């Protein structure tokens, strides 16, 4: 099972022994400082890793999106402008062709009149020359659309027509003889030529009109496609952007929840780039570090207070062995002459035993009070509970509370920090004492939990119980119903933090007026045997 602990891991048995020795050599506090340094290093590493990635900020993404839309719009606008220009061009060309046609048709009308009534063909020439002028003045335009060939064709057609008409005019009014015959032929030629010219121009106009319609419909389609594409681009971009931002916010929400539950793992890079959230990550890491340092102080101060309530008891408890030593020592001095060796031996044995007893009382307390660097080890929970109960025994005695301890045989060990766990158990027991009346009972049991690979520690009291309306708040920091100087309101919140760090849970069941049961579940260590031996070698245990 992956341990959620970020506490200092004992990497090798040797390292652990070294650490422990270092601890006994130097004053308490060393361990905590070490961990703090280690955390500072972790923090530095996380910072470097976070900053080492190439940057791609949200701002850059927003700018990029805008630039993309702008570029796309620009291209489309240019396309539209071009097709408008094209349409304009074509329309103007059509106009020119139209004028040309009008002139030609007018000329042909004169031509027809001339054939019918022999009227002024000369006027037709005028139309021809103005058609010529139209072609001439719009040469560029026509050339650009029809190409040189068609233009020249038109021009030459016109010339031919003009030549033919002039020839016709030269023939004059003669309507008979060979002349009439020639005239007849010429007339047909003129008519044909005129016909040709018209059909060419009309064909041209038709073609261009079709092209125009095509251009217009293309432009219309372009509008629609452009709109759709723009919509798509903007949707995709804002989707990506929103997901990016929202994902991060979601991520930080989980960070916040995680931190609130006491898991102080630093944020490490998850994506391949760096952005504004990287700054936030750095700030959060810094905050985690600060919160952690402060929590350490708080835990220490709460612990000192717990020690305070205990030391009062322990100091008194110490008075008994010291009194025994004092009395025995004085009597030894007083009666030295008159006592025999056996008696003297007995007295000195008593002194030594009582001194050891005093030492054991103090060692237990000091062990608990020592400012702790975290030390992880496989732990025998039943032993820890016995130690803790011994620590509280004076409080129990003074409050005339009877404590019962039971444990299932051969429970697997749990992997954790013995000081911290003992602190949790002590908190629960002290709370139970506070809730119980004089003469009450407290039951402490350790047994396999319902879930496999977990063990459960139950601290049961038959005291006041916890009213429903405050049940939700008891794990909050600084929530206490005890008078000032008695309760800190940190016991349970701290305990919860410690148990969460150990991958366990702490649950409460309470009935007002009937009592309370606190249940702590802890995951058991998966590879007990080997490390167990090493632990016994360490001077700490």
């Amino acid at each position, binding site marked *: 099972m992956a341990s959620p602990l970020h506490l200092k891991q004992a990497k090798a048995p040797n390292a652990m022994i070294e650490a422990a020795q270092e601890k006994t050599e130097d004053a308490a506090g060393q361990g905590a400082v070490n961990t703090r340094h280690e955390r500072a290093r972790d923090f530095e590493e996380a910072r470097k890793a976070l900053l080492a990635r190439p940057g791609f900020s949200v701002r850059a993404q927003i700018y990029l999106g805008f630039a993309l839309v702008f570029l796309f719009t620009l291209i489309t606008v240019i396309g539209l402008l071009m097709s408008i220009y094209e349409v304009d061009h074509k329309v103007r060309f059509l106009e020119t062709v139209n004028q040309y046609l009008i002139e030609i048709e007018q000329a042909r009308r004169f031509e027809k009149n001339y054939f019918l009534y022999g009227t002024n063909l000369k006027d037709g020439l005028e139309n021809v020359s103005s058609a010529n002028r139209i072609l001439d003045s719009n040469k560029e335009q026509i050339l650009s659309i029809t190409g040189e060939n068609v233009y020249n064709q038109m021009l030459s057609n016109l010339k031919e027509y003009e030549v033919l008409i002039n020839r016709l005019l030269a023939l004059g009014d003669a309507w008979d003889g060979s002349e009439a015959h020639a005239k007849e032929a010429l007339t047909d030629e003129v008519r044909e030529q005129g016909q040709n010219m018209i059909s060419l121009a009309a064909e041209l106009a038709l073609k261009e009109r079709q092209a125009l319609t095509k251009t217009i419909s293309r432009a219309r389609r372009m509008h629609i496609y452009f709109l759709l594409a723009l919509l798509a681009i903007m949707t995709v971009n804002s989707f990506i952007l929103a997901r990016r931002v929202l994902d991060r916010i979601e991520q930080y929400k989980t960070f916040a929840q995680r931190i609130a539950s006491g898991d102080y793992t630093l944020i490490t890079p998850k994506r391949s780039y760096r952005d504004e959230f990287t700054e936030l990550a750095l700030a959060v890491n810094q905050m985690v570090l600060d919160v952690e340092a402060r929590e350490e102080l708080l835990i220490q101060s709460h612990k000192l207070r717990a020690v305070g309530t205990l030391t009062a008891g322990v100091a008194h408890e110490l*008075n008994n062995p010291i009194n*025994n030593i004092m*009395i025995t020592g*004085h009597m030894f001095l007083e009666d030295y002459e008159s006592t025999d060796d056996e008696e003297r031996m007995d007295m000195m044995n008593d002194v030594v035993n009582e001194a050891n007893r005093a030492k054991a009382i103090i060692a237990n307390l000091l062990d608990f009070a020592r400012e702790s660097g975290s030390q992880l080890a496989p732990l025998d929970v039943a032993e820890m509970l016995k130690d803790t109960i011994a620590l509280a025994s004076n409080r129990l005695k003074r409050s005339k509370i009877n404590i019962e301890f039971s444990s299932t045989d051969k429970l697997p060990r749990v992997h954790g920090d013995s000081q911290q766990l003992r602190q949790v158990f002590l908190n629960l027991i002290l709370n139970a004492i506070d809730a119980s009346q004089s003469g009450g009972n407290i039951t402490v049991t350790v047994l396999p939990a319902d879930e496999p690979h977990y063990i459960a520690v139950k601290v049961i009291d038959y005291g006041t119980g916890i009213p429903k309306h405050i049940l939700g708040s008891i794990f909050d920091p600084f929530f206490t119903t005890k008078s000032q100087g008695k309760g800190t309101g940190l016991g349970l919140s701290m305990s919860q933090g410690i148990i969460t760090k150990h991958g366990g849970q702490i649950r409460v069941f309470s009935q007002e007026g009937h009592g309370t049961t606190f249940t702590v579940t802890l995951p058991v260590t998966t590879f007990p045997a080997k490390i167990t031996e090493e632990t016994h070698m360490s001077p700490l245990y």
Partner: protein
Amino acid sequence: MSNLDVLLLDDEPIVGKRLKPALAKVGCEVEVFQNPVEALKRIDEKFFDVVVTDISMAEVDGMQVLEHVVAKNNATKVIMITGFAMMSLAREAMEKGAFDFIAKPFKPDDLRAIIARAAEALGKPIAFEAGESA
């Protein structure tokens, strides 16, 4: 000079073991108990001039012993010895009629001095001069 009858009650065995000869040397007839219930039984049977009792004991505590003794015979001088000395306890003991109250750890002479004063007050002085060793 008649002997002074003393009952010494403390759940610490060494206290009785060492103080019994210490008090005997100054002319006290000492009976030692570790169990308060047995001590109470004995008190019911016999009059003691002085009862020396520890306060914090399981089952019955020293205050209850004090109350019992005072209720039975006001003449008995009760001396409280405790590792738990504090003002409230001291006042409670005095209010309930204790003769004196002494904190553990103490020297045998401290207790002897107190017993000597008690004996004085009872009109049965013993062979101990207060301040002998101080």
